[in-house]
């Protein structure tokens, strides 16, 4: 893994359109049954413009941005040698259906230890007005080619 990638900041992604049916499907897939995740009226009664994403939905948006690094041949990441080590979401506000989210990918750290490269990325998600929505930190453990 090329440590020269540390500190790299990628250009903003094209906006990701958050769809109501996708939020419902994701909520169902993780067994989230709170009505604000599926019922528009319940979400509006709770003060939201539309149905609300579950707390880890932002990974769907973040992983598209992370692909810029992971699929970059110059980074030398063999995805069959990757294990997900850590994930963290910091929410400024919940994502809701209708949001258009732009993501900037940062490579925060690459730490080599014991034949593993621990690669930490940070995705900064903003809405159509440019206001911050969430930060998504992800650490992958990448085994070396000879390990």
């Amino acid at each position, binding site marked *: 893994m090329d440590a020269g990638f540390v500190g790299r900041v990628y250009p903003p992604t094209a906006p990701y359109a958050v769809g109501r049916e996708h939020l419902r499907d994701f909520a169902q897939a993780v067994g989230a049954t709170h009505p604000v995740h599926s019922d528009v009226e319940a979400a509006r009664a709770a003060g939201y413009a539309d149905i609300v994403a579950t707390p880890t939905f932002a990974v769907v948006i973040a992983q598209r941005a992370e692909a810029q690094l992971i699929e970059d041949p110059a980074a030398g990441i063999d995805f069959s040698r990757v294990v997900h080590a850590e994930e*963290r979401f910091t929410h400024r506000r919940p994502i809701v259906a209708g949001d258009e989210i732009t993501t900037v990918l940062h490579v925060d750290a690459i730490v080599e230890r014991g034949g593993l490269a621990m690669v930490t990325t940070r995705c900064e998600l903003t809405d159509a007005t440019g206001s911050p929505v969430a930060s998504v930190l992800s650490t992958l453990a990448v085994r070396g080619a000879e390990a």
Partner: protein
Amino acid sequence: MSRSVEVGQVVGTRTVTVTRADLVHYAGASGDRNPIHWNERFAREVGLPGVIAHGMFTMGTAVNVVVDWLGDPGDLLDYGVRFTRPVPVPDPGEAVVEIVATVAVVDPEAGTARIDLTVSTEGTKVLGRAQVLVRL
């Protein structure tokens, strides 16, 4: 909304059963189509005991108990985990995941609390440092 909580208080527990069909649903909904989460042959070829759950499936599922307790997902400020052990999902059969959410820290000045999740299968913890920061 303001909640009164004490350190050590259990705010929720849940038992979740997980089948291969659940992993296929999550693969489609999340876009994480890595075959280790649905293809037994592939999982064994890369040295796993068999198909394992997506770490993000476990993370996403474990936090429901906190959201249901909060009532408003907007009060969930931060959520992080370490993926320490895989959750093998047999076929035929199912994995059983036990979730316990406990108040670890209360900060009255900030109006927040840290809820720690204990997430285990067959008595083995699968997430480390699973911490949820909430607005009280």
